[in-house]
């Protein structure tokens, strides 16, 4: 039972001053094992804050990040799942599901987490699942102003993932979940 937090596009301090208080009160240290961040934090202080929530932090480079040495894409394995992170501004058209599917096949991951559109999506195709956690601060994007703060928490348990979607709608936190299973194990590497 591994809890993985996926969030990004905070654009602090430029476009959003802080995470919503209700989100912050939920994100207490000790509960989450990994954080996957799609990028655009943008400053080091946000990086440090996320480190206090969970020390295992994976960030992909966003176009507005002040720290320039994050990787463009990153893959990691958690339990039976391979996860990939990419900010998403590199994938054109932005937010296009087929193009993201191409990226997913390229990275060979089961779950691809991307951002940039600031809209939550969870899409499934043959190669796997694409999740966009949206913007945790609700800041405007290159595409739209109408953004609800949102982030995603994944509960990885064997071959099953429960994705909890946290959205701040009209000042209230709304939580939904998505269940999905993987059909095959990761084949053990032979060496």
């Amino acid at each position: 039972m591994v809890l993985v937090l996926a969030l990004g596009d905070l654009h602090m301090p430029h476009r959003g001053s802080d995470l919503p208080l209700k989100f912050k009160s939920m994100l207490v240290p000790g509960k989450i094992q990994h954080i996957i961040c799609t990028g655009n934090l943008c400053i080091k202080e946000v990086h440090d804050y996320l480190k206090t929530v969970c020390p295992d932090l994976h960030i992909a480079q966003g176009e507005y990040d002040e720290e320039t040495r994050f990787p463009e894409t990153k893959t990691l394995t958690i339990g039976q799942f391979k996860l990939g992170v990419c900010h998403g501004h590199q994938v054109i058209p932005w937010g296009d599901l087929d193009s993201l599917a191409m990226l997913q096949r390229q990275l060979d991951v089961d779950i691809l987490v991307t951002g940039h559109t600031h809209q939550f999506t969870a899409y499934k195709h043959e190669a796997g699942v694409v999740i966009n956690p949206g913007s945790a601060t609700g800041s405007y994007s290159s595409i739209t102003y109408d953004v609800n703060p949102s982030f995603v928490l994944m509960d990885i348990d064997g071959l099953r993932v429960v994705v909890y979607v946290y959205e701040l709608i009209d000042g209230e936190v709304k939580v939904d979940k998505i269940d999905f299973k993987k059909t095959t194990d990761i084949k053990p590497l032979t060496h």
Partner: protein
Amino acid sequence: MVKKGVPDWLNSSLWSSPQPPSSNDVVESHEPPASADVKSAVVESIVEPPVPVPPPSVTRIVEPPSSSVHSSTASVKGEIRDPLSSHNGNNNYGNTNFNNYNSEEENGISNNSSTAPIPAVGANTGAVVAPAASSLAEDISSQAQLLQELSRKIINMGELRRIASQGIPDGAGIRSTVWKLLLGYLPPDRTLWSSELAKKRSQYNHFKEELLMYPSDITRKLEKSSLENSEPYGESKGFLSRSEITHGEHPLSLGKSSVWNMFFQDTEIIEQIDRDVKRTHPDMHFFSGDSTVAKSNQEALKNILIVFAKLNPGIRYVQGMNEILAPLFYVFKNDPSEENAVSAEADTFFCFVELLSGFRDNFVQQLDNSVVGIRATITRLSQLLKEHDEELWRHLEITTKVNPQFYAFRWITLLLTQEFNFADSLHIWDTLLSDPDGPQETLLRVCCAMLVIVRRRLLAGDFTSNLKLLQHYPSTNISHLLYVASKLRTHVAG
């Protein structure tokens, strides 16, 4: 049959055994008035010569009625031989005492040196051949008695307690069964055993299932019905549908009744339990190390403590409970009966609950200063010492100002498991559990006896040396310690 009055045993602290009822010529040997009946009842079916340790001031030694070897020096050896010769047929028990001394006896070591290790007045070295031999003969007899008692249809608990209080032999899984009986886990009626055991074991497994579940599984159970409908891989392509969460349960929930929240709160306790379990008895392969056996034992200990903590939110887990749990689990797991060893975890859980029920108050912090708390218990120990040995009490408390809390806290809360080596503490627990007065009272008497036995060194020492001595209690002959403790009971009465 001469029963001399009890001499000033406080100062001499000598070991002595009771006279057999038929023996006539008795010297001044120390005689435990009350326990003589006990012991003589035990030995009456066996011809056992008493083996008193001759104090330096005493010259004659009691003649065993059945043998004729009698010189003051060789008699010790001779007396040792005799019980063995009459029991040669029964010497197949896995009795460690027996094995230790067997070779000595059989080889007929002419060791006048066997008289040498007889403890000097007041000292308490452990290796005394003579009393050990008598205790080994008693072991054989008590083992036979125990087996006989246990094979009855309805076990006489009083009788069992009496025999058990002298020490339970290590072999044949007797200790496991006797402890279960003493702690009330097994009923005295043998016919009910299998049904009781099955019931309790399944109850424990039920607890485990319920309490050791992950929240994700719990929530899944809660929403069984809705899960049937959702088809995880229905279409190969498309947006994944979002569904409602049940009961507002999500991992970051801060609600008091939230399954997830409680899970995270318990995680702290679980971590502490884990740490303590890993530190339990690091010198024993049974508990510690990388072997699968040790790991599974640690896992079992953890499960028991976690289930206990969850079932008892008032007391949860306190450091030290793992130490009390360890001997129980060790004894039950090493039961030669396969069936019992496999269910050792369940049995240990219930016996642990029972044992702790008498000592719960020691672990509750709020009760520390109350009438039932640990401080009060320590005060009672102090009082007990004062009654029996005012001089020592005065020296400790007033002259050297050794606050009993400094040493007695660990003695009492951990039931002496940390003061002696493992085998010795099992022996002490035999007495603690079997005494009809109850473990609390007996524990205090044993602690008092511990103090009395080293009184010479304590009286001669100052604060530092006394504290050091009491916090690192020297190893002593356990039978002697328990004997002194039992004398404390009668002494007050008399």
